[in-house]
């Protein structure tokens, strides 16, 4: 089971607590929108558009210290571009974990 963390955000923030809180707030706003858009595109079988969503979402994986998930997303993005969404369920699990993490902080 993957565990997101705030290590990168804390390193970036240093003593700047205001930035840290503001940045977390941005993630809390951006992530659900990107996730929703991704799910809509998957439901519509719009793989190319979904690959663009994965491209954006994978950046958040890295920010939250999920390196393995990032590499998985790179593969999934390529597969979506090739027209296959067979990794969707596995990708969705990662999204749900991040969703829960962002709601907990």
């Amino acid at each position: 089971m993957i565990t997101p963390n705030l290590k990168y955000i804390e390193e970036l923030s240093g003593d700047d607590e205001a930035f840290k809180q503001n940045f977390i707030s941005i993630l809390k706003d951006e992530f659900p929108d990107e996730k929703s858009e991704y799910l809509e595109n998957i439901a519509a079988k719009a793989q190319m558009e979904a690959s663009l969503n994965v491209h954006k979402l994978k950046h958040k994986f890295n920010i939250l210290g999920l390196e393995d998930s990032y590499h998985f997303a790179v593969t999934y993005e390529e597969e979506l571009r090739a027209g296959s969404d067979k990794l969707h369920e596995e990708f969705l699990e990662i999204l749900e974990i991040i969703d829960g993490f962002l709601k907990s902080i």
Partner: protein
Amino acid sequence: MNCIIIDDELSARAIVKQLCANTPELDVIQEFDNAIEAIKFLNQQDIDLIFLDIHMPGFTGIDLVETIKNPPKIVMTTSDTDFAIAAYEYEAIVDYLVKPITAERFTKCIQKIKASSFKRPVLTHNKEASIDNDRDLYINIDRRLIKLKLAEILMVEAKGDYIDIKTINQNYRVHTTLKKIKEKLPENIFLQIHRSFIINFTKIIDIEDNSVLIEKSVIPISRSNRPELMRRLNLL
């Protein structure tokens, strides 16, 4: 150094902005969530450095690099390392930061930029285009032969017995026909998109419905010429 940040993701812009805030030499004067707005800004204001995302919907970072004339130094930011080689084909691109950008890597990037001179690079990304940059066209106005650089011509418009040639720096009215100047313009750069207009299609900023935007001019595309224009574009 005055800089701007261009990225469609707010979180990505926030990271670069924070890294800039921790770097006294950098002054972020504006941020943009799309390349088109940034181009409009760059047409009006000189800046020293751009932090530019590659993947943006519609108009990508690479499109922007190819569009702006005499670009400032550019640092590309992206999640994909695969684009590094492509990015370095452009002289204006001085570094390439992979997201999430660390403070250490960002500092190295700025040191590298400081170490280099601030002379603005010339965009050289395409051998064929470089050759055409050196080609000239002489036009006859009031018994004077005026030399124009082909690459600096933005568009030509038919005006009755005359044509208006719009270049990067100046406009000229010449007593000739669109058909005659078309024969003198290289086909790899110029294209007739309407019975009254020939454009330099490397200068296109965007295409919307039946018109193209070049600098601040909106030029109509006729239905019969649209397929050829679309064929020539490097469409994703």
